[in-house]
């Protein structure tokens, strides 16, 4: 297992710059997640680390040594693709054994058998060893794909959205299994996804990627509690954060397009800026200072999403359990002021003043 560092990786394609000075590093045994929307450059980054693509500039170091000149085989990394990684003409056993049979490794057959069966046990696919991969379900296929990565015991695991093609429920189950596996094996993993729940629940640390640039790096708590830009604030957290245009007047924050007012004293705010309120911090309250109309209700069981309209301003509110409100009701609500986020018009976070 190893420590990996990417420095100023840039990659240009004929029509677009996929990556611009991407730098991040992660330590031995860490589960590092690259989070970003489709097209942000996450897969490209992963492929560059694997050696399947060559970067235009920048270096990658593993355990202090540059691996830029090494072929994919020499880098000793395992790659789990989103799909199409299992060889359809072989059985599950042969698929799992394939990496070990490569000329680079030349593992003897008895050893192969032990390693394959071990990996199959860990992923609960031991009963499938004799089946052809074409006869497996999606979830089983991804388990085999992960198994094939594990058998090799490589220095680094690279995973390209391996759960994205699975059913929601399967994703949940496999997420927990994968995290558990990673923790017990202590394997250094670079995991790519567009799903922020996957990132928050699985990662030790996250790097948020947007249009080829690293926008923020940190632990899940950092990313969620202190998003560095409005992009990060909107990417992480369901439902999406309420981002409101506002201005400062006489020590009070005036939210444009509504009567929402909040005291401004703790922050070094410019005249106009953006205020972020997470839906769970907007709470219906009969004594609340603000009023709104309910325009849509999404009951999720454990909680309910209320779509509100305060004057002309659309807001999202998240309340626990069932909500008694109905579409069309007028309600009163309050905002939790300790949890507000402020961003300048350049979309960057405005830090709190130290009191």
């Amino acid at each position, binding site marked *: 297992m190893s420590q990996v560092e990417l420095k100023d990786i840039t990659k240009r394609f004929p029509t677009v710059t996929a990556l611009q000075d991407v730098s991040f590093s992660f330590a031995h045994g860490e589960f590092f997640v690259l989070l970003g929307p489709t097209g942000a450059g996450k897969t490209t980054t992963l492929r560059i680390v694997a050696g399947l693509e060559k970067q235009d500039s920048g270096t990658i170091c593993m355990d202090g040594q540059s691996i830029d000149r090494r072929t994919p085989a020499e880098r000793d990394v395992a790659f789990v693709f989103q799909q199409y990684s299992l060889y359809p003409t072989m059985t599950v056993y042969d698929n799992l054994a394939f990496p070990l049979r490569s000329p680079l490794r030349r593992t003897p057959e008895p050893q192969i058998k032990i390693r394959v069966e071990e990996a199959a046990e860990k992923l609960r696919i031991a009963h499938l060893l004799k089946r052809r991969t074409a006869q497996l379900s999606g979830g089983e296929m991804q388990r085999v794909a992960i198994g094939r990565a594990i058998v090799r015991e490589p220095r680094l695991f690279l995973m390209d959205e391996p759960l994205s093609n699975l059913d929601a429920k399967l994703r*949940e189950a496999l997420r927990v299994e994968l995290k558990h596996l990673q923790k017990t094996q202590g394997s250094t993993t670079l995991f790519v996804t567009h799903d*922020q*729940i996957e990132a928050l*629940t699985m990662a030790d640390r996250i790097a948020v990627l947007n249009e080829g640039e690293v926008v923020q790096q940190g632990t*899940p708590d950092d990313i969620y509690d202190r998003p560095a830009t409005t992009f990060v604030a909107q*990417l992480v957290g369901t439902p*999406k954060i309420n981002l409101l245009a506002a201005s400062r007047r006489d020590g009070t924050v005036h939210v444009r397009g509504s009567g929402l007012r909040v005291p401004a004293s703790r922050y070094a705010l410019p005249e106009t800026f953006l205020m972020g309120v997470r839906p769970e911090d907007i709470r219906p309250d009969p004594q609340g200072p603000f009023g709104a109309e309910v325009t849509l209700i999404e009951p999720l069981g*454990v909680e309910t999403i209320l779509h509100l309209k305060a004057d002309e301003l659309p807001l999202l509110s998240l309340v626990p359990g*069932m909500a008694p409100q109905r579409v069309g009701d007028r309600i009163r609500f309050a905002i939790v002021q300790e949890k507000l986020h402020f961003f300048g018009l350049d979309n960057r976070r405005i830090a709190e003043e130290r009191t």
Partner: protein
Amino acid sequence: MQMATIELQKVEKRFGDSHAVKPLDLTIRDGEFVVLLGPSGCGKTTTLRMISGLEAVTGGKILLNGKDVTWNHPSERDMAFVFQFYALYSHLSVRQNIAFPLQAQGMKRDAVDRRVKEVVDILRIQHLLRVRPGKLSGGDQQRVALARALVRQPSAFLMDEPLGALDAELRESMRAEIKNLHIAQHATTVYVTHDQVEAMALGDRIVVMSAAEVQQVGTPIDVYYNPANLFVARFIGSPGMNLIKGRYEAGAVRLPGDNRYPVPAPWSSPLANALAGQPEVVLGFRPEAATVTPQGALSGEVYATDMHGGYTVLHVNVNENEIVHIRSDRQTSFGMGARVRFDIDAEMVRFFNPQTEAALRREAAR
């Protein structure tokens, strides 16, 4: 839009000996948004396709407003189908894509233009009319697909996992758009998904399916708070309901790890009756129904904690790798291996028969 009540009577689909869909009865009321929910392979998409005519039934009848349409060609059923992968014509512009179904029916030019404009305004894609679908983002493509379905003003909309191909972030906003659209248009909709969050958010009623059979039909509140069996209990909710096997003895359930849960009053006689003869029972509670408290009746060891944004999920090991999930706030934190005690909300606890997997009913409040 016209009225559209869809009735499925003993509709089934079999291939030789195996069933893709076991005989199913369902009535979808006019203007209702019904979601067919289940894991891949449960038969939900096959059912939807049978309603549309893309799949022929091997048994049963399908009625639209009382008329038997079981053998009608898909184009004669007055239903619009929205696919997961949009199926937009890549060589036509957005406007031509939307106008296509109407032109195919032979509508006059001005009528077509008028309808297209209406629909385009509803979905707010006026700025995309001249663009080719290949150049659009996933969300916009889906809006165009919806527009193309809407423009026909059909009696019913059939949607096959329309949000499946979108990024997680986009799925959320498109979900609200679809719901708003439904409230405005009030058209009968049958919607297929494997994502229970989508089903809960959108459905007036949810049909939970598994292994070709209907497990439960009910409103989101029904399936969430009163799941009919172990499958529904586990499938709805993220994570699903915690289900632990125990033994019922004298007013309490013995759970693994030396835990003893005193059964709330309304459950004592149902339990005694249902379990006559054998004491095994399954206890169920949702993650948010448990509260960590030093005086809690049950105990376990913290195995892992997951950060979910606004809240944390504790994975608590009650005994030998029987893990339960407890929802907790972000403030309290526990180290790995810490022993915790917790309580279960008496209103939210549920019991199931381990053999039949069916839920037990508690006594009604007196």
